[in-house]
């Protein structure tokens, strides 16, 4: 006799270990693919799951088998017009994959595609920025939720019992079940009263009948329970994302000729990291992209990263525009403001003092945090020199000079540390 077993509740993901081994083995390739994927993503989409492809030739499992060439005779189905001795031109590209040469895993396709979950994707993204594990966990975690009251329900745990509600239900039920009987009892009692009340003749059959019925009805009335499971009401709680606040993030980038693709890529990672951080702390985030060379402009993300312009650099134009935007669109009592500025540090000499003035006078008093990264390999440029003067007295200003991806995190380290302390 056959035995039928329901295995659906058994643990899934038996292959999870094997999938992890696979990712570990091909770490380098996957990381490269993730880096490519980051390049094609919008900042606000950085933490999603992703379809990744890595070159298939790297992950072949080789075995001995026949290659193309030589002589072989195969049998095929579906002959329509051929007779023995017919000659057929070879199909172009020599593409005869069928017949006896059973195709092996991975052959003939040049990319191996698979999905990375959001956590795996972020893990790879963080990996080459040398983020401390604690920060990684914090950024990867889904934002906090809170449980809020949302009406009543008929089942739940005893601790959530809503007593007043339950009693109200109970009362209503008792009234509903008892009142017809009560009315009838009153009626019968009136009749009994007419027959003499207390002193009525107990041998009178009608009186006996009345007494019996009254007695029966009283029993029924008493049988209606004071509390029934039917009455129970519990407080209902639902889970809602914790609305902390809203934040706006200004991305300022220098797009003068000296900012090349590699530098922009570094800047993008810097912005993404800040975005992920903000996302964890604020429910709603707006991003404003401001690009500048000699003049500044508010643009969309596509244009921000991808169009190039040449010309000189006047950083103060961007700072002034950001200040303007803050005043008109993001009132301080409603928004937390963060600014991330990326530049190669090369500014028109006469402009840097003006930048410092704008920063100290107008921006720093308004913003939660201002981070500036100078993407350069050489000596500090003049903008850096000026910004540094403000550093000592202003705790909400962070400066960093970055050469590669691992330098990005230290710039934000203080911010992360501070926020976590506040949250704790």
């Amino acid at each position, binding site marked *: 006799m*056959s035995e039928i077993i329901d295995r*659906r509740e*058994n643990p899934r993901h038996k292959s999870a270990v094997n999938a992890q081994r696979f990712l570990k083995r091909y770490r380098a390739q996957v990381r490269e693919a993730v880096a490519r994927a980051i390049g094609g993503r919008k900042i606000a989409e950085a933490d999603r799951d992703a379809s990744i492809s890595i070159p298939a030739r790297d992950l072949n499992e080789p075995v001995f088998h026949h290659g193309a060439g030589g002589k072989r005779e195969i049998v095929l189905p579906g002959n329509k017009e051929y007779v023995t001795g017919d000659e057929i031109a070879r199909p172009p590209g020599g593409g005869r994959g069928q017949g006896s040469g059973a195709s092996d895993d991975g052959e003939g396709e040049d990319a191996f595609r698979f999905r990375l979950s959001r956590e795996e994707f972020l893990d790879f993204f963080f990996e080459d920025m040398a983020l401390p594990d604690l920060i990684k966990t914090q950024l990867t975690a889904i934002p906090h939720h809170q449980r809020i009251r949302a009406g009543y329900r008929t089942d739940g745990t005893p601790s959530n019992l809503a007593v007043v509600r339950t009693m109200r239900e109970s009362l209503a039920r008792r009234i509903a079940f008892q009142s017809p009987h009560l009315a009838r009892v009153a009626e019968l009692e009136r009749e009994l009263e007419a027959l003499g009340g207390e002193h009525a003749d107990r041998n009178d059959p009608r009186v006996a009948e009345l007494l019996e019925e009254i007695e029966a009805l009283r029993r029924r009335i008493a049988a209606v329970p004071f509390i029934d499971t039917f009455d129970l009401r519990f407080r209902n709680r639902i889970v809602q994302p914790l609305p902390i606040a809203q934040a706006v993030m200004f991305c300022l980038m220098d797009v003068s000729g000296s900012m090349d693709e590699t530098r922009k890529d570094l800047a993008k990672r810097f912005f993404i990291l800040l975005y992920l951080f903000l996302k964890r702390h604020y429910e709603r985030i707006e991003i404003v992209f401001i690009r500048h060379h000699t003049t500044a402009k508010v643009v969309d993300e596509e244009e921000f990263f991808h169009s190039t312009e040449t010309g000189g650099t006047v950083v103060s134009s961007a700072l002034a525009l950001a200040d303007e935007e803050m005043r008109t669109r993001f009132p301080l009592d409603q928004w937390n403001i963060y600014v991330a500025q990326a530049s190669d540090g090369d500014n028109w000499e006469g402009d840097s003092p003006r930048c410092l003035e704008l920063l100290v006078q107008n921006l720093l008093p308004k913003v939660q945090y201002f981070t500036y990264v100078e993407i350069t390999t050489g000596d500090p440029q003049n903008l850096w020199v000026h910004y540094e003067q403000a550093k000592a007295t202003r705790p909400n200003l962070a400066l960093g000079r970055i050469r590669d991806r691992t330098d990005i995190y230290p710039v934000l380290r203080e911010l992360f540390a501070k926020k976590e302390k506040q949250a704790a």
Partner: protein
Amino acid sequence: MERAAITPPGTAARRRTNEPLPSGSEWRFDLIERYDREIARVAERYGLDTYPNQIEIISAEQMMDAYASNGMPIGYHHWSFGKRFLATEQIYKRGAMGLAYEIVINSNPCIAYLLEENTMPMQALVVAHACYGHNSFFKGNYLFRAWTQPDAIVDYLLFSKQYIAECEQRHGEEEVERVLDACHALATLGVDRYKRPPKRTLAQERLRQKEREEHLQQLVNDLWRTLPRRAGSEDESAELRFPSEPQENLLYFLEKHSPLLEPWQREMARIVRKLAQYFYPQRQTQVMNEGWATFWHYTIMQTLYDEGLLGDAFLLEVLHSHTNVLTQPGFDSPYFGGMNPYALGFAMYRDIRRICEEPTDEDRRWFPDIAGSDWLKTLDFAMRNFKDESFIQQFLSPQVIRDFHLFCLLDDDEAPNLRVGAIHNDEGYREVRETLARQYALTEREPNIQIVNVDIGGDRSMTLRHYRSDRRPLHPAYKDVMKHLAYLWGFTVRLETANEDGTVEPTHEVKVDKRRRPELTLAAALRTLP
């Protein structure tokens, strides 16, 4: 194969007297049980001999897990299974592929996985197909009887998983992975084609494994003993050839004779070899096995319908799936992916039944022994005693060749064009049949590679010889395989090619100069200290 698809059910007078089984597309456990009881009854009437069934309902994700591990319920960890899983998941989630309706494992009891998303008619079809079709094939076919141990396989899988996990703890994941990679590359050459393996239980296997470790190492040490030779024995040793005969089972040879492998590495080679051997019959009986299961789900379902147990709608859904499985696109169709083993196998079994029941003159000429015989006995005989190659050689009839419009195509890279050989006419039947049979022969599908020499007196290098046929070269991946082989052997390995004319020429060499990872061997030596 329109011919086989929807023939009017039951030509014999129908006894539609029974109360039909509950129909509708939702399955329930009690329903599967009722259908299974009826299917079992019919199967028994047709004389199908099966292992007890264990039917397991699983979800789509679990089915993907099963895919990734060749359907095995337990398996050791290796990245290649993860790769397979990720690939399946990607294809499935994009909707490019449906999952199999079932997976069945050659074990005793016979484990069949049913997908929870199947409808009731599909579940019934799958039970008939897997639990009675495949199951009886596993129990009856001579290759499975000789090569697999359905009683012990689940235990052995458990043993291998635990053993390899233990090795990972003791020697590190990377070390273990390196050995497994190398063994996997040689897995297809890990089968004794002629010797039959002994049968063992899990307990015996554990006990043996300990003894084996010590014993094997002892044997290896004997072979590689480097005692000074007496003068005068030199020409003797020059004549000594090892192995004395070419060896085709590479993994077995490495397990027994590789000089530098540690005992646990030998045991892993053995595990990979054992599992390869378990799949060896399946590789040779695709057409027969799938054809058999398809023939029986079809026949059993028809019988249940004839008995009045199945409704019309139920049977139509069954036949719809049945027909889908049997699609055989022509060679020039964009959907063509080789011969469909379900279609070919099913057509052949049906044809054998036809030859038994309603033989034509042609059948009497071609199959004098079986024309007009008892179809159940003939089918049973055919199932038990053949593999794809010999089954086609023996039973492919002109009728089936005509139905499929089979023809031979000669692909010679020295000729400018492809040439059509035999087609489905009187002159061609025999040649088509022979060519198709050869196409399914393992010796034809896989290159013939054997160990011909090990220089035990000298540099310990190993020489493999590829016996080439029809000028068919090896796929360039052989270079990577040779690297894996060199890793397991520890010394230089060479590949040479024996051409059709008998000449032999060197093809490839992987040099290994120094002893591989001496620190490991030292570690092994230290472990043996008290």
